[in-house]
């Protein structure tokens, strides 16, 4: 194993320092969310688990026995909360998030039934870290910008002095620094989230979730529609789901309803 080569590739080689740089950005401009993993067919999972309590001794896989239109009826029951909630708990999504301030990541980790793995600030040189402002903030003054540059200078000074490490230098890292992470959450947990728009942390997390929903919607439009309950009136969303006919589903969703493997 060539350790130096691996460390260069992963950006953990201390001899290669990133160029000092401090971009000041607003969350709405910096946030990136990518859905990187998801169930092979979440509709089949939800259908099968919602109908799991019925059957005879043979316990046949009902997915093959029911028309697409009827599968949709079962899914409607799941997505309007008319089945046991475990059906939604089966569906797990993994996202890559970049461009949030550290304080928002810390707030995000407090959500129940989520799993996080994030970039460390002991393990990485943060000389190139951006500063991310919360949405809804006023214009950033020159004074504010300058203080972040000064803090970055102190950060650099610690690294340069004697045995200074990235860990020591983080003494001068503000909680507004850009943080990146992967997180996993199931559909039940996601759909149960509540946001308080009067609380700035909650308001900004809601913004992150609007991007997450957009990403899920690209892959699974019916689940994307369901997750709009995080931002919209639940009854209106549920009514919309109840009204859907099989022919109205997107081609992406139909393909999964018709998949028999």
């Amino acid at each position, binding site marked *: *194993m060539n*350790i130096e080569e*691996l*460390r260069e590739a*992963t950006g*953990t080689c*201390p001899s290669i320092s990133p160029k000092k740089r401090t971009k000041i950005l607003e969350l709405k401009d910096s946030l990136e969310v990518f859905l990187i993993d998801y169930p092979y067919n979440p509709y089949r999972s939800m259908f099968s688990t919602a109908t799991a309590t019925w059957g005879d001794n043979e316990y046949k896989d009902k997915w093959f026995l029911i028309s697409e239109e009827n599968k949709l009826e079962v899914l409607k029951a799941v997505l309007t909360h008319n089945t046991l909630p475990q059906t939604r708990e089966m569906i797990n999504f993994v996202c890559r998030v970049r461009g949030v*301030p550290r*304080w928002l990541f*810390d707030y995000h*980790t407090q959500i129940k039934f989520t799993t996080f793995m994030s970039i460390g*600030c*002991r*393990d990485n040189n943060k000389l190139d870290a951006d*500063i991310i*402002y*919360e949405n809804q*903030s006023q214009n950033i003054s020159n*004074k*504010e910008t300058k*203080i972040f540059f*000064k*803090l970055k*200078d*102190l950060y650099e*000074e*610690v690294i340069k*002095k*004697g*045995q*200074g*490490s*990235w*860990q*020591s230098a*983080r*003494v*001068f*890292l*503000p*909680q*507004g620094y850009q943080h990146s992470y992967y997180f996993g959450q199931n559909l039940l947990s996601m759909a149960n989230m509540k946001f308080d728009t009067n609380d*700035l*942390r909650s308001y900004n997390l809601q913004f992150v979730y609007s991007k997450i929903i957009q990403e899920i919607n690209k892959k699974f439009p019916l689940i994307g529609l369901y997750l709009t309950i995080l931002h919209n009136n639940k009854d209106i969303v549920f009514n919309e789901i109840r009204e859907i006919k099989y022919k109205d589903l997107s081609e992406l969703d139909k393909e999964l309803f018709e998949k028999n493997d």
Partner: protein
Amino acid sequence: MIRISNITILRGCVNLIVDIAHVDKSGVEYTVSNLPICCFDQHSRARMGVEFYDYKVTDYPKYVFYTHVYDMMFKDINFANHIFSTLEKLETIREKASFKDTYNLMSRMCSYRVKQTWESLKGQMSRRLKFCEEEFIVGLHFKLRDILVKEGWEEAEDFKPFCDVIKKCDYSQADYLSNMFGCLFASCGRWPAESDYASFNESCSNVVEIEKQLNIRIEKSEYEIENKI
């Protein structure tokens, strides 16, 4: 502790407070204060059998620096001046800001409460008593262990760093991803290291400083005793 103008900076674990709120057969409930935000961030990642409450970041301009960085201020007056002038400006801006989190440094002082089962705590101790962990979390766990042992809780006497259990340094093991990602600091010397590879040539936490700052005695490993290290 150093205080200039309204800025206070604490040194390492010197002012660390661990207060036991409740102990019974199921576990321990304790509060910690005079630690930096980065310690809470690290500590609160623990998942199984542990809950964190009442996390509060101080509104006062109080900071807790790594011993290494704190001592650097006394070796270089220009560096110290640079720090204090920057922190004063930062505090002025922070005070006016309606939302303060953006301006909280990782070293800003905080406090919190922990409720943890014995089993969970034992797992944490096996990791956090190792000097490859950062000094605040190492100090906190040594302090907690010391208090529990002095209070007569036998469970706490079993708490030891995992390297003492397997009788070798597992921090610098070349397997899993340690050399690629995690092997930042030189081994502490408690057990012989299988690899000399490290990004920084000093151990992450300083045993002598932790003993002095917490006023506790840390028993040497069998290897250190046998080899009179």
